[in-house]
């Protein structure tokens, strides 16, 4: 059944408003980033700021077009759109133009189109369609396999372009799956693995092991609320570790501290297991599994890092972790980016006064590093505003997603949230040196038609679905 309701009355104008503000802010910052005194007019079409205006107008036309298309279209054609996207991704591998060593672009006249940007929309739609299908058991092997297939197929095709950054974006859909009932373990595991990966490279194995041990005890205490048994568990490790330590200090045995603690844990382990078995506490198994797994992972990171990652990837990770100082080498980008943002101070240098971005010290200053211009010219006030806008928009979108009556709309909404969040987090994280340099654009801000249009379509499909949510009776 459907009810006819005025679309415009139910459009979420707040989200649309934030979108417009961001796009305009982006345009102004692109102007400042590549400002050229010979082309002073912001409307100069020979410059990127002039072109961006065309992309923006086109994007608004696209948004209006989306509003003219019936809601049913998206769920009905979700798989077909996905299939087209996959075909485009395959096509670009052979027909695409090679730029900077990657075949990521179709060239149509003077215009370049990046199918990877649109594949995100298609994947969001396909995932929403699949997850909203009737009677889906999300924890079944079958379902998990399909979910992973939908996510990984485009990721893989993009990875072989190669455009690792854009490929990584697809892992963000894990968030969608999580919202729809994937085990927490996946999310927790993902976070723990990511944290451990960096810790393993940064810190001594011994210290990490101690942290894991401490955390395991803490988690146990929180879950069991039994201080006494937590204390005993601690003693069980501390006593053998202490004895071994003293022996090694007296030169009776030769053992480094890492093996001492490892052996102590091995000694304590049977006691834990017996205790858990007798008290029938399943949590302990989980905690132990995590602790042992984490330790093993820490070990393997070293191996993975040095054997699996390529040299330039190792470099990037090292630079991000501050293990390598290389201001003119690979770390140059991040370094200049931080200098540009850092030099903005609290209130910034003022519009068009940024030297670092305008004078090309920051690479890709109008695309991937557009946030530097914000930081340099508008200072902390500007960066805080932009981050605030993103957080506000993302929370708003969660709210929109949650109020949908159809599963498809809700899941698609989370797809939008996930993609925007990943871009936001990784892009800004890289410009301020918190994450490795992964070349993905900042939504609505970065220069470029493909990405602006893709994000516009992504967002406005959701707003269109939202505008007619009342038509559906669930």
């Amino acid at each position, binding site marked *: 059944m459907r009810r006819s309701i005025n679309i415009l009355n139910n459009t979420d104008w707040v989200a649309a408003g934030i979108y417009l503000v961001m796009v305009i802010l982006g345009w102004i910052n692109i102007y400042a980033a590549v400002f050229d005194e010979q082309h002073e007019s912001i409307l100069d079409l020979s410059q990127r700021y002039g072109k961006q205006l065309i992309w923006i107008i086109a994007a608004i036309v696209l948004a209006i077009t989306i509003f003219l298309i019936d809601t049913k279209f998206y769920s009905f054609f979700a798989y077909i759109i996905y299939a087209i996207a996959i075909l485009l991704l395959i096509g670009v591998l052979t027909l695409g133009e090679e730029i900077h060593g990657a075949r990521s672009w179709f060239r149509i006249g003077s215009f370049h189109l990046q199918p990877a940007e649109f594949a995100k929309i298609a994947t969001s739609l396909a995932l929403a369609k699949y997850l909203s299908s009737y009677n889906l058991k999300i924890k079944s092997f079958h379902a998990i396999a399909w979910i992973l297939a939908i996510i990984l197929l485009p990721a893989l095709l993009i990875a072989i372009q190669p455009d690792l950054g854009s490929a990584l974006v697809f892992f963000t859909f894990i968030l969608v799956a999580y*919202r729809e009932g994937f085990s927490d373990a996946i999310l927790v595991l993902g976070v723990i693995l990511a944290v451990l990966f960096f810790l393993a490279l940064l810190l001594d194995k011994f210290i990490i092991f101690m942290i894991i041990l401490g955390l395991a005890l803490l988690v146990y205490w929180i879950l069991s609320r039994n201080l006494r048994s937590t204390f005993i568990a601690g003693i069980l490790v501390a006593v053998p570790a202490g004895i071994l330590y003293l022996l090694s200090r007296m030169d009776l045995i030769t053992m480094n501290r890492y093996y001492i603690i490892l052996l102590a844990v091995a000694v304590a382990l049977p006691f834990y297991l017996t205790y858990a078995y007798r008290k029938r506490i399943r949590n302990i198994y989980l905690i132990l599994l995590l602790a042992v797994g984490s330790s093993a992972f820490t070990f393997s990171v070293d191996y993975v890092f040095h054997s699996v990652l390529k040299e330039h990837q190792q470099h990037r990770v090292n630079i991000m972790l501050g293990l390598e100082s290389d201001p003119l080498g690979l770390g140059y980008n991040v370094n200049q980016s931080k*200098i540009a*943002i*850092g030099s903005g101070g609290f209130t910034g240098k003022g519009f068009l006064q940024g030297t*670092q971005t305008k*004078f090309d010290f920051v690479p890709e200053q109008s695309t991937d590093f557009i946030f530097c211009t914000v930081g340099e010219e508008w200072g902390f006030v500007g960066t805080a505003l932009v981050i605030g806008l993103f957080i506000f928009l993302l929370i708003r979108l969660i709210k929109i997603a949650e109020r949908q009556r159809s599963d498809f709309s809700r899941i698609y909404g*989370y797809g939008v949230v996930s993609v925007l*969040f990943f871009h936001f987090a990784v892009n*800004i994280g890289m410009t*301020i040196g918190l994450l490795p340099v992964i070349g993905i654009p900042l939504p609505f801000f970065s220069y470029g038609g493909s990405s602006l249009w893709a994000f516009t379509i992504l967002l406005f499909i959701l707003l269109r679905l939202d505008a007619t949510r009342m038509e559906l009776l669930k």
Partner: protein
Amino acid sequence: MNPYAGRKYVIGGIIILTGIIFLIRLFFIQVVESSYKSTAERNARHIEIQYPARGLIYDRNGEILVYNEAAYDLMVTPGQLQAFDTVDFCRILEIPKNEVIRRIRTASDYSVFKPSIFLRQISSVTYAVMQEKLYKFPGFFVQPRTLRKYPRDIAAHALGFVGEVSEEDIEENEYYQMGDYIGVTGIELAYEEVLRGVKGRKIFLVDVHNRVKGSYQGGRADRKAEVGENVVSTLDAGLQEYGEKLMTKFRGSIVALEPSTGEVLALVTSPAYKPSLLVGRIRSENFLYLSQDTLKPWFNRALMAFYAPGSTFKTVNGAIALQEGVITTASEYYCDLGFHMGGYSVACHMHPSPLDFRGAVQHSCNAYFNYVYRAILTDPEFESTAEAYMNWRDHVMSFGFGDYLHSDFENELPGFVPDDQYYNNIYGEGHWNFFTVRSLSIGQGELGITPLQMANLAGIIANRGFYYTPHIIKEVEGQDRIDERFLEKHNTRIDSIHFAAVADGMEGAVNRSGGTAWRARIADIIVCGKTGTAENPHGEDHSVFIAFAPKDNPQIAISVCVENGGFGNIWAAPIAGLMAEKYLRDTITRPYMEEYVLRGVRLDQQ
């Protein structure tokens, strides 16, 4: 209701947490940490130093002694280098590739971000080619400089030279930066702050390729270079050049002063070098060459050599004795081919005897001045020889001996006049007397006097008892007057009346028959002079002569020292005479005497 609806809070939480982490991080790098600001400024600023032209140096008649010529240094900023066409680069500069690599490495060792000199003083032809192709060699730029030029190529020691600043100079004075030039010796050193001017700077905003993008802060931080002030030297270029010519064959020095002002008219030291040898790219080679020369051309004898003044010092002892009243101008002493007393003998040459004061100066009688000095040290006014000696020493010091004159020559030395303690240490207190120190009667022994001090002595006698501190700069552009210390009249402790007899004696020495310094004679001008022969334990005695002329209203006072020149009249006196005539008359009436000096070979040694 969806069973997993609660998870929206987890997802929302992750988003908000990310936002908070970003805000903290941004707060830290934008607000807390300040180093990014300065790094950014360094990044985007290119400071172009504008070197002012160094001040010119004129002689007393307005003739240019030192001026500037444009030169170009090729500079490099290693941090801005990019791969470039070394073949073309090497071809333009005519240096081999490994030399390019070596120089870039040297520059990098100094600083990656600051420019340093890559190639010094490239020719204007190379400059023209280089300037055109400079865009192909990012990291390089051309820095205009000025080089010193010397029209007459004279007075190397007096003018001094400029050189690149040393590490110490940079540390001591923050005005200087690597690659700047600074006065190293002579006038260039003494008047460095006046001559150098003030460096200007232009700050540009540059992009990552070091391309100029505009001025920094609209040019408010720029500073215009201020051209160095010109200075007028007291030197007389013609006289200086003539003096250098006369000394070609000799080792020694000439110092000529204007007695009424203390202005140095000529400052000749020999062997010397041409100042142009230390300019430009030939400099380092020549510098080494001069440093290794066994004749020590660096050594400025006029200011730094200590000689025993010999008989010229008799004028001083005579004046002191007259002042102390231990003799009068009428006092006569016999000379029996020398002074014989207390078992000691001091030889003298053949001359009429007995002589009065004027005669003794004219004939330079050794015996007479032994008696004079004995009278000074045995003056009953004083309780001991030492006391009388110290009184005598005070008189001597008032002539500017034994201490720095505090002229504007940076490397002037004080000379030496021993005090009583000096003899006490050698002989024991109370165990020395006139006989012990009798060599001082005739200016031998422990005395150490520089040629500048000797010229000053000539000036004092010319002035009849006072002097102005000798100096070489008479005018600094933009300053009303020269340093106060050069305008201060220094009176000796001798009344002016006593110098009349000394001057009479000196007139006789040059102009009367039987005078010891006839070679200094000039027609129609009364030259007053006193010969000296400085005993030299290492070889033939040094020929010494002091003179001033004319006798009344003296215009010039001169000291000449010719090392190993023998008796004063042989070389020093004729040189002084020629110098005086050159200065006073500008023509030489005795060409044979000039020829004799220029040939530099004694007739008896031909």
